[in-house]
Every structure is written in C-alpha cells, then in structure tokens.
C-alpha cells in the first residue's frame, strides 16, 4: 500500500448530536470528527445508531440537539441538497434507487450539472468512464430491477462518485460483494482518500476495519464509546468496545449421518428477469440435518435458484423434488405448506409487511390456523403471548410488540423473520444472505439458530456471498458460476483459495495468476 501523506484538516465535525425516535434515543451526545484524506470506520452493533448519525450529516434527519461544522464553519444541513452542496455524498445501506428506471436515469436524478434536454446522452459516456476507472462494471442501459444486489451496489457507488463528493459516506458497502470485489472497492476507496477525500465507512466487520481504515469510531447503544487510531487497536479490543463482552466465533459441527434426502434438484433450467438463461442444468441434493452452502459471486444465478425452489419463479426445465414429491412450479403457498421456510434476500421488500406490527408479522404464516385463529376470528391472547415469547427467545430489540416492523433496525428485522420462519419447524430452510448487514452479535446468534435447526433435522440451503460464513457452518459447499454448479466439496477438506478460484471460474483465475 502506498504511503499516505500527513492527514489533513478536520472536514466534518459533529458535536453533541442527540436524536430521539419514539421509544429510543438513537444518538446520545455523539461527537464525531473526520479528516481529509482519511478512511474513518464507524463501527457498532445493529441499532447502535450509525445510520442515524450519518443520515443527520446527510440532511435526511434533523438532530434534536448538537452542532455540525464543515471545515470549521457552523452549518445547518436541512436537506440532502444542502449536504450535496457541501460536498457530502452517501451510499445508503438500503439502496436508494429507482427500480423501474435505468442505471443512467438513476445517476442523472437530481444532478444539476447534467443537460436539461437529453440529459442521458453525455452521462452514459461518463458512466462507462467511471466504471472503467474504478473497476465498477455496469451497463448504463440496464434497468435497476434487473440487476443483482451486487450490481445495484455498484450503481450506488458510481452515483456518489459522479457527484464528486469530498466527504463520502458508505453505509455497509461491502456486504454483498465477493472477496475479490471487496478488494477492488478498497482500492477505489484508497485512491479516493489519496485524492484528499474523507471517507466514512460504516461496518460491522472487524476484518474490514483492520484492512481499510485509518481511524475507528465505535458506537454502542447510541453513544460514541471511543475514537481510536487503527494502529493502536486490535480486533479483540474493538469487539469489547462494540459489544461490551467477548464473542467467540467457533461453532462446533458434528458430522451428520447420511440422512434422508429432503431436497433434490435435477437438471434445473430457468430464465432471469431479462429473459436470458440464468440457471443451466443445475443439480444437487440436500439431506436431512445437512447445511449445503451455495457460494458464488452475486449475479451467478443464486437469486434465481432460490426463487425457483420457493415457487417465485418458473423453471423452464428440470425438477425440484421435496421429500420425494415433485414441487416444481408449485405456488409459493403450496410450497410453504409443505414445510419450506424462506429467508429472503430482500428483507424489507419480501420478508415482512413493514407497516404491520411486530406481533402481526410474527404470525404471517400461521394466522389462518389454530391457535392463531379460531374460525373467523384471530386469537389475540395467543398472538400476544406468541409475540412476547419469540421476542425474548430471539432477542428482538423492539419498542414493543405492537410497534410497526419497519421501525426496527436491519439486524432486528432479520431476527424477526428468522423467528417467524424457524419457529414453525420447517423441513427445509432456504436462507439467502441471512447475515448480510448484521453485526457480530446478531450474526453469531443467527448462525447458531441455523445450526440448531439443522440439529433438529431441517435441511438447509444457505446462499451467501460471505465465504467465511459458508466455511463456518455448512457441511458441503456448492459453488455457482454463470448459472451452473461448478463443483460441490466437503467443507472439512476445502481450502478458501480453491473455492475462491471456482467462484470466478477457475480458468479466469489461472490467467490472472499468470499476468
């Protein structure tokens, strides 16, 4: 890594920030400073208030108390427009994209420097330029809804870069990227820091903090615990500040006996949203009590695979067999009825009804049956007890069981979904990126939950781009590349390098090694 020069002036200084939401103090007297040319990590558990703090800086929320200084000048940022004019850019945790529009239209949106007439014309060229310069590959003409989460993330990053922000906030930008892509992103960020920009990097991942940041601020329950130089700290120290206790990541697995085959996928073909083949002759089996990890870079057919199995997408050829019965192209309702649980990739859009209460969200799959309902009526006594039990059992942090689910932080939304899906004792769990965006504590809890389920006998299909996660809890690993399973290996004997090279198509990797 090239030596970086003396770090510059303080660009952003937030002092004594307080932000209250109904039932929580999201930020409590937080002081936060960022310097030019530095990559500043903002570390904290789910609900610690990281996003809230940065939304205040970006003008989306207004603070109840506190002051913001940009280059020693007191400012009031009352809208994102103000923030953009002050040179602040933000890549949000939940993508801020207009899904039916094209990449180019998304980038032009709100861009006052673009031509009024035919604004897309010049922007298209520049997008290509940017994507080449920073290694962020996207097609300017593609519609956002057709892109995978990883690609959507790239659009977000380009969008911020395009606006030439000199303070760039990234809210958990790496969660959907493969190891190689994360390296590329880091290179981009370092280049931008060298150009003198200040970068705020929100994350839960300690490895990333250690790899990329110059400086770390730790938030815990809305309070800034400390700001330390990266060189003066280590992972254990940071974990303790963040969680207030030690966390152990060693999850023991006992080898599974050859159980009954729960899920069998035979020669599966399916198309993606663009109508192009996304799955090409895919086959594998998952047994009772087994966790099959599906590794791969975003956009290689994982999403389509999950959708076909859960009945959300039609297979064009091949079969999905559950416990010996063909469930290919059955309706999602029928598939759920046969004991398949789905932990979807897009939590908020597909995992819950944001405006309904936590208690109601917890019975979304069971409300038609006793004991949730009797004949025409809901059994509120049971529903309330059920909610309270799951909230404490799964440690869901919520103001109350009656609060709308949309008010929960990302980690707690995921716990809610897991609580609903696993409390039903499913025979098969299809989990897509279950710990994406979650902090260490929640990640540990969710992996444990999955392990408990497999111990109980559930078969689990775990789709994840986090290789470490797959290596930690799965029994076997299937690697997907361009819609095919390029190999299935036992976790016990597998090497990270071997799987990593399969993920990018082994051929390509060799070429890269040679050059």
């Amino acid at each position, binding site marked *: 890594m090239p030596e970086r020069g003396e770090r510059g002036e303080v660009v952003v200084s937030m002092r004594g920030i307080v932000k209250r939401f109904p039932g929580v103090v999201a930020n409590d007297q937080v002081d936060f400073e960022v310097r030019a040319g530095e990559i500043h990590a903002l570390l904290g558990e789910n609900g610690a208030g990281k996003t809230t703090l940065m939304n205040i800086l970006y003008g989306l929320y207004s603070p109840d108390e506190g002051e913001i200084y940009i280059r020693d000048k007191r400012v009031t940022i009352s*809208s994102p427009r103000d923030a953009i004019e002050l040179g602040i850019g933000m890549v949000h945790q939940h993508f801020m994209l*207009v899904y039916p529009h094209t990449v180019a239209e998304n980038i032009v949106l709100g861009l006052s420097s*673009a031509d009024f007439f*035919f604004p897309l014309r010049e922007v298209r060229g520049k997008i290509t330029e940017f994507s080449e310069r920073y290694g962020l590959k996207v097609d300017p003409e593609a519609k956002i809804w057709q892109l995978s989460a990883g690609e959507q993330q790239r659009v977000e990053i380009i969008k911020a870069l395009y606006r030439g922000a000199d303070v760039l906030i990234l809210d958990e930008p790496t969660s959907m990227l493969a190891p190689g892509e994360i390296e590329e992103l880091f290179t981009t960020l370092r280049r931008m820091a060298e150009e003198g920009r200040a970068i705020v990097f929100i994350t839960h991942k300690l490895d990333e903090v250690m790899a990329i940041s110059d400086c770390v601020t730790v938030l815990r329950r809305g309070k800034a615990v400390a700001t330390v130089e990266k060189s003066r700290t280590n992972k254990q120290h940071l974990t303790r500040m963040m969680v207030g206790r030690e966390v152990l990541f060693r999850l023991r697995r006992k080898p599974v006996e050859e159980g009954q085959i729960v899920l069998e996928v035979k020669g599966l073909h399916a198309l993606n949203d663009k109508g192009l083949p996304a799955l090409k002759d895919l086959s594998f089996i998952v047994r009772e009590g087994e966790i099959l990890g599906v590794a791969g870079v975003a956009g290689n057919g994982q999403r389509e695979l999950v959708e076909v199995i859960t009945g959300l997408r039609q297979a064009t050829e091949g079969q999905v067999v559950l416990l010996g019965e063909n469930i290919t192209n059955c309706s999602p309702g029928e598939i759920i009825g046969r004991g398949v649980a789905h932990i979807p990739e897009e939590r908020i859009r597909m995992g819950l009804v944001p405006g309904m209460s936590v208690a109601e969200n917890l019975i979304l799959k069971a409300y038609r049956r006793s004991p949730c309902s009797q004949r025409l009526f809901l059994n509120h006594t049971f529903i309330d007890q059920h909610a309270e039990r799951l909230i404490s059992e799964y440690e869901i942090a919520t103001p109350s069981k009656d609060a709308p689910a949309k008010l929960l932080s990302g980690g707690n939304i995921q716990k809610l979904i897991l609580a609903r899906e696993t409390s039903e004792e499913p025979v098969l769990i299809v989990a897509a990126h279950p710990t994406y965006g979650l902090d260490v504590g929640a990640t540990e809890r969710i992996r444990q939950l999955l392990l408990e389920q497999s111990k109980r006998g559930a078969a689990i299909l775990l789709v994840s781009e986090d290789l470490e996660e797959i290596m930690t809890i799965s029994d076997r690993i299937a690697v997907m590349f361009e819609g095919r399973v390029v190999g299935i290996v036992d976790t016990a004997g597998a090497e990270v390098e071997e799987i990593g090279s399969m993920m990018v198509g082994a051929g390509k990797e060799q070429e890269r090694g040679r050059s």
Partner: protein
Amino acid sequence: MILEFIVAALKAAIPAGTPLLFGTLGEIYAERSGVLNLGVEGMMIMGAVTGFGVTLATGNVWLGITFAAMAGGLLGLVHAFLSITLRANQVVSGLALTMFGLGMSGMLGKRYIGTPPPCRLRVAPIPLLRDIPFLGPILFQHDPLVYLSVLLVPLLWFVLFKTRAGISIRSVGEAPATADALGVNVFLVRYLCVFLGGVLAGLGGAYLSLVYVPAWIEGMTAGAGWIVIALTIFAMWSPGRALIGAYLFGAVKVLQYRLQPLGVSPNLLNMLPFIFTIIVLLAGTGEVIRKRIGAPSALSIPYAREEK
C-alpha cells in the same frame, strides 16, 4: 355517402375527445409524480362554469379560457396542500374536491342556465393541410384549443422522457425517498405536477362549456373526470397513448349520437362510454402486466422524511 358519414364521424370524434385529452394529460403528470387526483371531475366542471361566466362577463373567450385554467389550477393547489403538505388521504381529498366542484359550479352557474354564449372559438383550418383529401377535414379543420391539446402531447412526452425534469418527476413518483436523498425537492415537484393537472382539467372543462356544447348545463361533465382516471391507466401513464384513448372515447360518444336516430335505446347508448371504460381498463391492465409497466410505485402514498 358512406365515406362522408365516416369522415364526419371521425371529424366529430376529435372535439368530443379533446376535454378527455386535456384531463388525461394532466392526470398523467399528477400520477407520475405520485399523487392520485380523483378531483378531476370537480376541476373540470369548475373550469367549465368559470370559463363560461368570465366569457359572458367580459365578452372575451380567451380570458374565459385563462380563468378556467386558473380555477382548475387553484383546486389543484388545494388538493396538493391537503395531500402533500397535510398528507391527507388522497382518495378522500380528491373525492371531496369532486363533490365541492359539482356543488359549487351548480350554485355559481344557476343564472347561466339557458344563456347562449356571447361568442365562441372559431374554427381555424390550417392552410394547405386542410385540403388533403380525407385527412384534411378530419384532422386540420378544428378550433385552436384542439391544436393546443394535440401539441401538448409530444411536448409533455418530451419533458417526461427526455429532460432532467422528467426524470425527477418520474423518480418522485416511483421512489420519493431516493429522489429526496439526491436533492430533488419532492414537495415542489409534486405541487407543480398537481397544479398542472388542475390547469389542464380546467381547460378540458372550458372546452366543454365554451366550444363543444357550447352552453352551461348543470353537471355537464357527466362523468368525464372519471373516464379520465380510467384513461390514465389505459394510457399507461404516457401522453401518446392518452391521445389514442381520448379519441377512441370521442368516437364512442359520436357513435352514441349517430345511433340514437336509428332507434337504439338511449339507455343502452348512455351506458356505452362506461362499458367501453371497462373494456379499455381490461385491455390496458393486461398490457401493463405483460410489459411490467405498473402504476408509479409511490402513487397515492404521501411522503415524509424521517419516516421509515
């Protein structure tokens, strides 16, 4: 003979569809920005009565038309204030405005009943083009408001799809939080679009009372504002298809008049536009689903920052 009949019918279809075209173009903009305006009927009829009254008082049709547009725009602003600033339920606010408009216009218009308009827009055939056989009389022998409505179609299409403003409008209707995060003033965009919707509805109303009928009759919009709502869906929120839809309805209306002397039951004929509305909606919806062009995602949802 047959040819003459067809030419006459087609020629009549265009003015008959023009109030709908104005209204639909306006509603497309309002809905594209995420605001459902069910007050079109009320805005049209207020435009009709205002246009008629001002023309009667001043003797100037153009002044009447301008005031009609302003009256529609004013009601549009009321709807904007209720549904954007106060975040009231848009369905309720729109329905309230329709009822208000129908009642208010009835009261204001009492004394105009039976009064002939003092002057009217003259037909202004376009030189040269008017002489094209067959097409000339159908397309190019109309009054200036028809030409205005037709010119608005490509203009509004261009703004919506080929300018920065259009991207802002469409984004505000699809994902207001995203537009807001990029510095687009969501409230301003919505206010302007709803205002424009009101102005165009007002023009549509003025066309009815000053050109098409021309007279003031209580409740003269007779459901045109509701057909506009259906046409907006049929048009898939795009100005070009609004033109086709509006003229189709114009043709149905003409058919209604032409079939009456032939002894077809008037009750049946009165149902025609509404039967056609259902057919159009069914046809439109199928296509919407096939092409994955849905209503703007944020349609009828008020926007507030800091709300998850």
